[in-house]
C-alpha cells in the first residue's frame, strides 16, 4: 500500500534496484528545463531526498543551474522536474535550466534553444515540460524549432517532451470539433512522453491510461518513416477509433512512450505536497531511466542513446510495459462523450509503446 507516488514507488514499479544508480565515475549527465519563470531551490531537493531518498544512493544537489535563481518562492514544476529526474536517474550529474530574470522581451523556450546552439558540452538527456497548441504557433516558428531538434539529434542529445495534459485536446474548426495536437510533442525529432495511473491508486499495480495523457496526430508534421508500421497497425486494429474527421491520420503520431503521471509527492518551499499530476512528472522519470541506461553504455565504451525513436520503433517497444487499458479525454460532445483514443496492444496514441521495465529495457538498449 502507498499514499501516492514517491521515488520508492517509482523504483519498485519500474524494477530499479538499489544498485541501479549512477556510478559517479563517468561523464554522464542529464538536465531538466522548464520555462514557467519558476525558481528552483536546492534546499527543496535536499529536503525531498531526506524524506524519500533513503533507499538509494543519490545526489542531494544539482551540478549546474542555468538561469538566475532568486529568493522568490520555488515553483512546483521546477521542484518536481528535478526531484524525479534525480530519483529515477539517481547519482547522475544533473543540470537545471530554470530561467527567471531574463529580459522582458525574450521568449524563455527560444533562449533555451539558443543555449543548445552555443554550448559544446551539454548533458546527454534533456527532459522538457513545455507545450503549446499547434494551431496557436506559426508554421515558420514550428519548422525552425523542429530543425533545432534535428541539430540536437545529430549531436546525440536525447530530448524528451511531455505529451501534454489535455488528452487528445479539442477545438472547433468551422463549426466542427477536432482534436488539438500539441507542439513540440508533435515534432518527429523528439521523444514524447505520455502519462499513466495505477489501476489501484494506493497500490503498486499494473498501469492504465491517465485520462489526461496528451496524444494524437500532428496537423503540421507528416508521419516519419520510423513509425509508419506501428501506427498503421494501431489504426487497423483499434476497436474504438474516433471518427477520422477528428484527426489527421497521416500526421506524426505521439506519444512514443509513457510513465506514471498521477499522484506524485513533491517538496516545494520545504513543504511536501501530495497528489501532483501531469505529464511534466512522467517525463523526468522516463528521462532519468534513459540516463541510467546511458551510464551503462558509457561504462561499456558505447555512445549515449541519442535520438531514441528510430531504435524504439524498430525494437517494437521491447523493454516497456505495454499499457492496454483506458482512454484519454477529448471533446465533450454527443458523438465522443469526452473519449479520445484508447490504448491497446503495441503502440497507441495515448501511451506510445508503454512504460519502462528497466532491466529488460537496459538489456535491449545495451545490445
Amino acid at each position, binding site marked *: 500500500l502507498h499514499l501516492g507516488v514517491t521515488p520508492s514507488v517509482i523504483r519498485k514499479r519500474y524494477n530499479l534496484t538499489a544498485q541501479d544508480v549512477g556510478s559517479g565515475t563517468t561523464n554522464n549527465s542529464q538536465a531538466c528545463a522548464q520555462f514557467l519563470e519558476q525558481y528552483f531551490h536546492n534546499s527543496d531537493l535536499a529536503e525531498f531526498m531526506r524524506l524519500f531518498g533513503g533507499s538509494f544512493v543519490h545526489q542531494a544537489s544539482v551540478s549546474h543551474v542555468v538561469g538566475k535563481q532568486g529568493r522568490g518562492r520555488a515553483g512546483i514544476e521546477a521542484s518536481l522536474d528535478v526531484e524525479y529526474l534525480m530519483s529515477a536517474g539517481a547519482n547522475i550529474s544533473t543540470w537545471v535550466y530554470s530561467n527567471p530574470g531574463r529580459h522582458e522581451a525574450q521568449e524563455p523556450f*527560444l533562449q533555451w534553444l539558443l543555449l543548445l546552439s552555443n554550448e559544446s558540452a551539454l548533458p546527454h538527456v534533456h527532459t522538457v515540460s513545455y507545450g503549446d497548441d499547434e494551431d496557436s504557433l506559426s*508554421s515558420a*516558428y514550428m519548422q525552425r524549432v523542429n530543425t533545432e531538434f534535428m541539430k540536437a539529434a545529430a549531436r546525440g542529445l536525447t530530448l524528451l517532451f511531455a505529451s501534454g495534459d489535455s488528452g487528445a485536446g479539442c477545438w472547433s474548426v468551422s463549426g466542427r470539433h477536432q482534436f488539438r495536437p500539441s507542439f513540440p510533442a508533435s515534432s518527429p525529432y523528439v521523444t514524447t512522453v505520455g502519462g499513466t495511473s495505477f489501476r489501484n491508486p494506493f497500490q503498486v499495480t499494473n498501469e492504465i491510461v491517465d485520462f489526461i495523457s496528451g496524444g494524437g496526430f500532428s496537423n503540421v508534421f507528416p508521419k516519419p518513416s520510423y513509425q509508419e508500421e506501428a501506427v498503421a497497425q494501431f489504426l487497423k486494429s483499434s476497436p474504438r477509433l474516433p471518427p477520422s474527421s477528428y484527426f489527421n491520420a497521416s500526421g506524426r503520431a505521439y506519444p512514443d512512450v509513457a510513465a506514471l503521471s498521477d499522484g506524485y509527492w513533491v517538496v516545494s518551499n520545504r513543504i511536501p505536497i501530495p497528489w501532483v499530476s501531469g505529464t511534466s512528472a512522467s517525463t523526468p522519470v522516463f528521462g532519468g531511466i534513459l540516463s541510467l541506461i546511458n551510464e551503462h553504455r558509457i561504462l561499456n565504451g558505447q555512445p549515449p542513446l541519442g535520438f531514441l525513436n528510430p531504435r524504439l520503433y524498430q525494437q517494437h517497444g521491447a523493454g516497456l510495459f505495454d499499457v492496454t487499458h483506458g482512454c484519454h479525454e477529448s471533446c465533450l460532445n454527443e458523438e465522443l462523450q469526452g473519449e479520445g483514443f484508447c490504448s491497446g496492444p503495441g503502440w497507441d496514441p495515448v501511451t506510445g509503446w508503454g512504460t519502462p521495465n528497466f532491466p529488460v529495457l537496459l538489456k535491449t538498449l545495451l545490445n
Partner: protein
Amino acid sequence: NYSPEPDQQRKLPPGWVSLGRVDPEEELSLTFALRQQNLKRLSELVQAVSDPSSPRYGKYLALEEVAELIRPSPLTLHTVQKWLVAAGARNCHSVTTQDFLTCWLRVRQAELLLPGTEFHRYVGGPEVSRVVRSLHPYQLPQALAPHVDFVGGLHRFPPTSSLRQRPRSQVAGTVG
C-alpha cells in the same frame, strides 16, 4: 514587405493584462532566426546516427561540425547584419552555429525596423511575470525573405503550467 508569421496566434492569453505602450526610448532585445543551409543533409545525418542498422549509428557530430554544415550563407549573414546596423541595433551577439542573432534596440527603432509592431508591457501568468510583446502582426522587407525565418520576442507569451493536484477521490471517480 512580407509577414514571416501570418499564422501565429496573437491574442492575449487568459490572465494577462496590458500595462500600456512601452516608452519609445526603452531598450529591448530581439532574437532573429537566420535561414540555415543544408537541412536535407542534416536530416540524412540524423537518420544515419540514430538508426541501429546504420554503419554510422552512434557516431554523433560535435556542435562545431553541425555549425559547419548548417551555418547561414555569407550573403544571409551580411544582408541581415547590414539591415540591423542601419536600424540602430547594437550589442548583437550570435551563437556557435551563427543561425541566431540577438540584438538590442530602442523600442522606437524596433517599431520602425518591423513595420506594424507596437510594443506593450504585459503582466500575468502564474508567476505574475512581466513581458514586453507586440500583438500586432509584424512585417519584414521583402529583401529579407530568403534570410530570416522569424523574429523571436514579439508574439509568444511564457507558457503556463498544466500540473494539477488531483486528490484520490476525484481520480477514483475518473478511473472508471
